[in-house]
């Protein structure tokens, strides 16, 4: 069995039809991880005991000849920002290096209820803050397509497991592009669902109004099947919406004839890499060939998205990260003479440079005298960015853009310039701010052989149309990608 070619459906079918067992599949993946992940660094923690327990449960079901749940036996990886009961959960931070979570995130228990086998926890930028995975408190991840390059971030480990074939599907979180951008850099599919579609319960918070859990897969279908398992209202997250979850399997495979595809010139400006431009324009032509109507639209406030994002995300982060104080869990440094001395020593030692930078920026924009000028201003511009999309979606069904302005950059290339790093998210932050769904699919390769991603954005809670368009584009572009 070639593990690199396994998909969600083929893994499940292999277990259902007794070509293999869930236990044997888990064995094979752990062997591959042990042989190959050292050079990639995608995993931080393996949870074999838990994986084999679940595999045994699936094998028992298969032995009885019962029909199997939709993800039965599918080996998956989980970004280490989701809590996993009795398994180390670090958020990529030294401040949580020894944290053993006392409960499961909703997405984790839903995946296991659907039959998935959780192999382990994946590396990421510390507290999901970064665009290259170089901010991991442990070690960077190398892009499996070119090991001298970054896998993107912050869910770089989860994207890399799919590109390296060390998991069939995985989970990430997207706050400013952290699923879609690494999907583009690693040449895999990454889906950010609508805000409120997937529960954040057990997702270690970075920016609560922007954090979106979502899946990675080799194919659009795999991403859709993963979404099916995790989507829907959760009483434990009051921001999840009580909106019916359609059957995504039925939606994909539908033609795109008559659908309107919006193309905004703001995403194709002079800063865009010429090879990325050519690949995405080719993808748009393929959608036209497939029967979609291409409509020019405008998203005029796009140039203001990055500054808006870095005010709101850091403000929320400075508040969310106040909880790491050495009292209830995590690192504690020095007893100190006073409580506040202990807080400061703990936080100085536990947080990395980027996290400190964002806590400082967020604290500054919320501080007396600057709140209106920065935080409230950014919230007003957020309304304008959301309105741009509202307006566009009265004219079109989806919007197609590049996912990132360049293919994967070299390790170390941007680590000294935080602003240059932030601009890697220029085409992805807008959807997080508006809360709309988006997917990145591979749409070609650069001359150097680096993957290029195409982004498809849709209306709130209309992942079905996004997946449908992505599926048609994926098949039309297969020759360019592989």
């Amino acid at each position, binding site marked *: 069995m070639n593990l690199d070619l396994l998909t969600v459906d083929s893994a499940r079918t292999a277990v259902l039809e007794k070509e293999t067992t869930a236990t044997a599949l888990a064995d094979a993946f752990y062997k591959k991880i042990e042989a190959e992940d050292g050079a990639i660094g995608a995993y931080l923690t393996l949870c074999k005991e838990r994986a084999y327990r679940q595999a045994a449960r699936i094998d028992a079901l298969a032995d009885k000849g019962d029909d199997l749940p939709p993800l039965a036996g599918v080996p998956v990886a989980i970004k280490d920002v989701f809590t996993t009961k009795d398994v180390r959960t670090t958020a990529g931070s030294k401040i949580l290096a020894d*944290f053993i979570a006392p409960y499961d995130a909703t997405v984790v228990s839903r995946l296991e209820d659907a039959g998935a086998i959780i192999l382990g926890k994946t590396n990421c930028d510390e507290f999901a803050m970064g665009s290259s995975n170089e901010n991991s408190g442990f070690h960077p991840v190398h892009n499996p397509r070119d090991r001298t390059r970054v896998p993107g971030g912050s869910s770089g480990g989860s994207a890399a497991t799919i590109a390296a074939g060390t998991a069939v599907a995985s989970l990430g979180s997207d706050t400013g592009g952290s699923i879609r951008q690494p999907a583009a850099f690693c040449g895999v599919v990454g889906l950010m669902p609508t805000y409120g579609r997937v529960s954040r319960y057990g997702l270690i918070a970075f920016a609560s109004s922007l954090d979106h859990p979502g899946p990675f897969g080799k194919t659009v279908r795999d991403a859709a099947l993963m979404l099916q398992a995790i989507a829907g209202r959760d009483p434990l997250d009051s921001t999840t919406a*009580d909106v019916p979850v359609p059957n995504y399997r039925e939606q994909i495979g539908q033609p795109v004839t008559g659908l309107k595809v919006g193309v905004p010139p703001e995403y194709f400006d002079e800063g865009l890499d010429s090879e990325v431009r050519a690949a995405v324009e080719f993808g748009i032509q393929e959608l036209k060939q497939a029967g979609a109507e291409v409509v020019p639209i405008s998203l005029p406030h796009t140039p*203001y998205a990055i*500054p808006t994002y870095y005010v709101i995300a850091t403000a929320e982060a400075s508040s969310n990260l106040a909880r790491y104080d050495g009292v*209830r869990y995590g690192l504690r440094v020095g007893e100190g003479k006073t409580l506040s*001395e202990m807080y400061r020593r703990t936080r100085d030692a536990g947080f990395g440079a980027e996290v*400190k930078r964002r806590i400082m920026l967020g*604290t500054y924009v919320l501080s007396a005298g600057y709140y209106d000028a920065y935080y409230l201003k950014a919230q007003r511009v957020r*309304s304008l960015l*959301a309105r741009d999309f509202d307006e566009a979606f009265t004219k079109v069904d989806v919007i197609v853009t590049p996912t990132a302005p360049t293919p994967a950059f070299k390790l170390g290339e941007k680590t000294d310039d935080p602003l240059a790093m932030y601009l890697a998210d220029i085409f992805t932050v807008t959807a997080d701010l508006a809360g709309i769904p988006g997917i990145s699919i591979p749409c070609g390769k650069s001359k150097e052989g680096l993957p290029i991603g195409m982004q498809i954005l849709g209306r709130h809670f209309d992942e079905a149309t996004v997946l449908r368009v992505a599926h048609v584009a994926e098949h039309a572009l297969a020759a360019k990608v592989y």
Partner: protein
Amino acid sequence: MVSEKDVSYVADLAHLELTDEERIRMLKDLNSILGYIDRLNQLDTSNVEPMAQVASRYGERKGEVMRSDETRPSLPREEALRNAPVSDGTFFKVPKVIER
């Protein structure tokens, strides 16, 4: 412009100490990022409502946001204390609380 004094003030609010080296770097980075953020002032937003979160714009689940105030199972004390760096088995322990 952010000054060295601002860096100290904000570090204090954020419960960070920061080394001298980190402070120099922070001053440079904050000024560079805030300089970029200043482009938001090109926009007139005097008649635009601030948007704090997504769900409120779409009005799902009107009136259902509040749940009933009922006792529900929660983490047992032992579990809640399991990750505590220092505890006496009943409470979290902290250094003496004396304000700076």
